[in-house]
């Protein structure tokens, strides 16, 4: 691996520079820094959710924890509402990808339509999640009545906040391109946004699976983690 060969270099031995070029010749790409930063952002967000999930599994092993699925009276035994919301977010992610592909092919109208659809469905997902909160509360599943409920509200809120953050960055990118640059340069930043959207969709799938798991599944996962 290149990192190991890098770390094995002996910098005290003099090597003249190769004529006329940089030592680490890499195609100059103004997006490179942003792409790298995005990788770090994804790693940080990944760690954040990983830690939340670990605490969820640990907390699930205490006797007062009642999973939200598995028994007929639990709200996610029938998870059709969540499936619907997941579908909405999937469409948002798909629209983002379509927009990206169109922008790459310089079909800018299609790109703008795709982007608008992505924003529309993302906001739709957020509203649907909020509606689900209200629904749960109307059924008496309050945030503090059980740790499983607490985790449901907490994880959906944190996930939603990350989507809101994504929307703000997207708005910033679109405005900047609209006013300062050519619409034709949309593909570069849009690619980063699309990766972020897909990533958050992936995170949602994991959360969805976790929150609708039966007690048996949760116990098995917790046992795997040593809790």
């Amino acid at each position: 691996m290149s990192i190991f060969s890098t770390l094995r270099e002996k910098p005290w031995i003099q090597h003249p520079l190769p004529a006329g070029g940089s030592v680490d010749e890499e195609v100059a790409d103004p997006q490179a820094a942003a792409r790298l930063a995005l990788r770090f952002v994804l790693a940080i967000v990944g760690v954040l959710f990983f830690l939340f999930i670990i605490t969820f599994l640990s907390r699930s092993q205490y006797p007062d924890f009642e999973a939200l699925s598995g028994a007929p009276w639990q709200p996610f035994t029938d998870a059709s509402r969540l499936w619907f919301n997941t579908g909405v977010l999937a469409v948002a992610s798909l629209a983002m990808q379509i927009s990206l592909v169109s922008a790459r092919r310089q079909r800018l109208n299609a790109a703008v339509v795709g982007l608008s659809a992505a924003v529309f469905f993302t906001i739709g997902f957020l509203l649907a999640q909020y509606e689900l909160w209200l629904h749960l509360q109307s059924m008496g599943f309050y945030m503090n009545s059980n740790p499983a409920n607490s985790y449901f509200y907490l994880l959906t809120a944190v996930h939603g906040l990350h989507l809101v953050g994504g929307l703000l960055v997207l708005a910033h990118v679109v405005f900047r391109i609209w006013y300062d640059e050519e619409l034709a340069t949309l593909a570069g930043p849009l690619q980063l946004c699309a990766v972020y959207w897909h990533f958050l969709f992936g995170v949602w799938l994991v959360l969805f699976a976790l929150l609708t798991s039966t007690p048996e599944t949760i116990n098995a996962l917790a046992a795997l983690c040593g809790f």
Partner: protein
Amino acid sequence: MQHVAIADRPDELHDPQTFITKYIWSQDHKVIAIQYGGTAIFVGLVALVLSGLMRLQLGFPDTFDFIDPNAYLQFVTMHGMIMVIYLLTALLLGGFGNYLIPLMCGARDMVFPFMNMLSYWVYLLSVIVLLASFFVPGGPTGAGWTLYPPQAILQGTPGYDWGIILMLVSLAIFIVAFTMGGLNYVTTVLQARTRGMTLMRMPLTIWGIFTATVLGLLAFPALLVSAIMMMLDKLAGTSFFMPALVSLGENLEYTGGSPVLFQHLFWFFGHPEVYIVALPAFGMVSDVLATHARKNIFGYRMMVWAIVAIGGLSFIVWAHHMYVSGMHPAFGFFFATTTLIIAVPTAIKVYNWILTLWQGNIHLTVPMLFAIGFIFTFTHGGLTGLFLGNVTIDLPLSDTYFVVAHFHMVMGVSPIMVLFAAIYHWYPLMTGRMFNVALGKAHFWFTFLGTYAIYLPMHYLGFLGVPRRYFAMGSTDFIPESAQSLNASITVSALIVGASQLIFLYNVIWSLRNGEKCERNPWGATSLEWQTEHVPPHHGNWGAELPTVHRWAYDFSVPGVEQDFIPQNHPVTAEEQTGGEEGEKA
């Protein structure tokens, strides 16, 4: 790996025009660094005063009416949190990271200057929120810097109402600030190095700051997670960490949460945090030692590997802070083992520093004094860490002053020694003037000897069994009365050390105007930051063209070369080239 947008198109630089854009809403990494540094030092002085107040109470109990048990606990908590997060982390990474990364890598600025500016202002907001807790009803939290639930949010703990909330909010804001800054540091190191600056030609300072930033980016989320969940326990009545309990005769509504879970999360952040502070210090002290001993750093590659290894290992030692927490005893064995393993790369670094000094042409300048002082304090603090890393020794000592002495030596005094070394070392670059050397030396001796006068006896208090965190000892049979005399002497030393920091402040401020104007590169350093066209470097750092790097950062006293240092941007001569090839064959 150049970042073309910044490196080759200086016209894209956001050239500041007005006073406000130049010094206040500045996007220049050097100005941001000084803003970070100034704020961190200010808030650090607040924490220093708090420690003085604590010592007054411990040294002379029943003397000061305004220090009651609640106030004492609040001083302890705020002192700890401010020093670890808002001073050390902010000054080492926000201050020195910002100043040195672009200059040492040969970049014009950070890759995302606007985000960098935002990082400082968000950090300032976190400091304001934190300090605001002194003025709210009930005062700041007194839960101890680790903020353990359930007591942190229960009635009876000072600041359980407003203080703890402001603390958690402030931490969350700080984490946002750090993440924005940290993303800049890592991307700048990886993307904006100038031509010829390979990773293995970077000065160790950059390696230390880079690795610490990666640690911070991955460890701070754990603190954020625990802060959010504790805030919900406090405000929304959830029971993530709060067990079912009875408080003041009343059954609370909490059910079966796990306080130990909080401790795991906290220390999963807290232990890497030790290295977030230590690694930049390791890097900077390496550069100061090599420069002032006029000798290449001993075992450069080993130093880099050690930094990376320590960074990796720091994520699997956290529970050695929790031997007495009631976690599964089998964990203790695992974490004791990893703790002892992490001592290996750390010891390699200490040996390499000493071997760098060995047969060097040691100049006992002020930065060098502090750097050598660091080797002493760090070795002492590190060795007591080996004791405490073992479960059986930690159990009886954990709640005593032995631990206080240990972590102050290793994590308080040692990074502070490096910070002073670094400030004195880079002061001529930052200001273009030399500080007053006599005052600098006086500051060193007061600080160095003074800290020993504080912390060596404290180890002994720990052996006696004097418990930490206590407001007053009361009457305990097993602690002799002479312990109180020792405590009083520690307090006197602490007050002297605290007051002697005024020498430093005076020196730094006085020299800004009255210090001797110094020549360029007064220490004869090799790294790029000293090779700028102007001192202090102007906006954009380099003139029309970026420097090109031809060698590593440690070409000191090269045989056959008249000058005892060769800057990184000097081309390789023919003789060096043949010498180098022979070396490669050998």
